[in-house]
């Protein structure tokens, strides 16, 4: 997906890794009036776009084709320089308690379960966007 048509420099840039069309649609509805949204269809694309766009925050789905969220997260952390403190939030339907613990232990900065509560998501975005 190419750069969004309406990039508003006043709004924060959010990179969203999400493979499912319905997921993309849902998040777009929730967030498009507040943030500039950039979408990646899988982990590999997310890594690529992270370094290309330098977003303010990343929302990362876990279950994605080709490269999953864990792998993408690892690669981003590995490749970016130490000064880069951009937060990466896991947004996933992996909602069971153990799964949430796994994800937080893996190093994600925060966790939002699906179905997404839009208020919760926006609150967390505001909190983490520096």
């Amino acid at each position, binding site marked *: 997906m190419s750069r969004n048509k309406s990039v508003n420099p006043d709004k924060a840039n959010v990179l969203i890794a999400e493979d499912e069309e*319905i997921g993309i649609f849902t998040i777009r509805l929730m967030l498009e009036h507040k943030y500039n949204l950039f979408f990646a269809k899988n982990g590999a694309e997310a890594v690529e776009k992270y370094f290309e766009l330098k977003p303010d925050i990343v929302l990362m789905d876990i*279950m994605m084709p080709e490269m999953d969220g864990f792998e993408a997260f690892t690669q981003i952390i590995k490749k970016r320089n130490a000064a880069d403190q951009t937060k990466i939030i896991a947004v996933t339907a992996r909602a069971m308690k153990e799964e949430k613990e796994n994800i937080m232990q893996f190093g994600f900065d925060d966790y939002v379960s699906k*179905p*997404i509560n*839009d208020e919760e998501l926006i609150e967390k975005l505001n909190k983490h966007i520096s």
Partner: protein
Amino acid sequence: MIVLISLHTTTTLLCLGLMGFIFFENRKNPLNQVSAIILGLLAIWNFSEIFADIPMHPKQIVMIFINIGTVGWIALLPAFYFLMLYMTNKIIYKTYLFLGFFFILSAIFFIVAQWTSGIIIKGVISSNTGWRPVWTKGFLFIIFLVYFYFTLGFSIFEYTRSYFSTIEAQKKKQINIVLKTALVILIVATIFDIVLPELLNKPNSGYTEFLALIWIAGISFGMNYYSLFFVSVYDTTESVIHTMSDAFFLLDEFGIIRSVNPAAAFITGYEKEDLLNTPFEMLISSESEITENDISDLIQVKKIKQLELELIAKKGTHVPVLLSITVLQSKKGYGLICIAKDITDVAEYKRKLEETNKKIQNILLCSADWIWKIDSEFKYITASDKVEKILGYKKSEIIGRPITDFMAQNEAKRCIHKLEKYILSKKQLTDLEVWYTTKYGRPVCIQINGIPIYTPDGKYQGFTGISKDITFLKEARRKLITAKTQAELENKQKSEFLANMSHELRTPLNAIIGVSKSLSRYNNANLNRKQLEGLKVIKEGGERLLQLINDILDLSKVEAGKMEIDIQPLAINDLIQNIEELMKQLLYNRNVDFKIKNSISTKALIYTDPLKLQQILINILGNAAKFTSSGKIELRCFQKEDNILFEAEDTGIGIEDNVLNTLFDKYKQAKDKRTQKIKGTGIGLSLSKELVQLLGGEISVKSVLNQGSIFTVCIPSNEPSSDNKHILKPNEQKQVS
């Protein structure tokens, strides 16, 4: 003449010395007493001879000494006679007492006769040798000779008899010494002092005195070599009988008890006096009789016969004894010596042994296992009958064949190797499992427990053991392991499935809820009222589905024992606030009042899992809201002992009696026709029940149809002890409750 005097003096002194020694060595022994008397008489005789040899006048004084000497050696004969009788035949010596008494009387007669008139010996004074005694040749002299030779003959007879009788060897030697030396003296004295002087009409020679010395020397020799006089046979035998622990009975030929020892009294319980002169039969139980045949056999064979029988003690109890009987035969008849050994202990051991054997036999009979023994070449020596049931082979078919013949291929080598290891280490073999092949070719797994056997000097002898057929167990174990693995796998698959299902359901729900919510929130200007209502319905439907998924996941977690409880202090106020807020949303725009009546101090802390408790209460209050179209819902909180109680009362439709019992059962929704239009799956209540139980509490319900229901949740509020403040696993939680 001087030679004779010194000879007599020496002999006298020796006799006196020996007499004193023998007498004081063992004065209680009759043998010593008699011997001392003999030696005393010998001393008297020799003492008188000293004076007889000194030429002196008048003749009357010499005569006095002559008479004393004569008395001495005449009295010597009966004393010696007693000695002989005593030594050669102790037991029947009383029967000879009369004869002995006769000899004493005759000796006294001779002594008196000699003393008063000098009938036998008369003194003659010869010119050169001084005074010599001369034999008178009257009637009394003839009687004297008979008396004298009778003694001689009797001595020879007794001496000979002692050789052929059953007297013990020690005693034989003693008799040999005493009688042999005495006989020599009697014969030589007869020849030199009586026969030769008479025939040649010469005075006697004095050799007799010299020979008396030889006799004394002989007795001394006997004392030295054969312990003569020291340990008398009489003493030994008598004291052995007295002290022995076996009962001794001496019976006469009529079976009357004539003598017993203390052990006989002890074993039978009677006094010694009660036993004497009573028939021995009295003591023998009627079952065990000694027949006349037995006794006649004994007399003929002259051996010891042993019988096992029971004596009847005074108390009436039966004492098992081993009775040894031997016959004591004499010319007068026979007697019986009975020695009874108390074998109560032996009999008891025997009985116990038989009992134990019987027990073992019974165990073997009952046991399904078979017992075997193999020799050092691993060949069967014995096997119990049960082998047929296990291996199909008869006992006779396996004995003599090596154990390896019956084992499955490849097993023989391993088994022998193992056995050899245990033989070397001398240890007990436990639970060795070996596959055998039955006669019909079926493989059976045999569990062997055994122990190697060694000779007393440590040489390996064989192996003995018990074999058990564990094929069935083996099979069952294998099945169980398979089943367990399968179950574990299935459980894992189930968990994975649930996780995946959760994920797959959440993804579309995310869209349904998210889109409907966002559309109505941000785009309401573009949508008409109907569309907005539609969005709301979609959203609610999505949320209900989400709740359902969460409940299902929770329930399956509880079932799998994976639900974790996190006990924390909870302020009752926080709980009430949360519930109030949630209920307000739930009952928004509804004609239902919601009230909370709290009688617990607002500062009080409940120790429980706050999220679970809230989930339970929301669940039952949500139900109440569902089924109550108008009226009120009331939540009452109060403390009862250590428990916190929550009562949720509604004025809803109530619950029918017939479903009240199964209300909390899983997968069962109250089958009320009326509820079909009301939303619900029945999972909520069963989940609530499971959660309440996890918290260590109880849930119950009361209901009146068409009037309403009261759900009561009771949970413990105790502060947990410090060591389990951490997250409790549900299992632990159950134990705590």
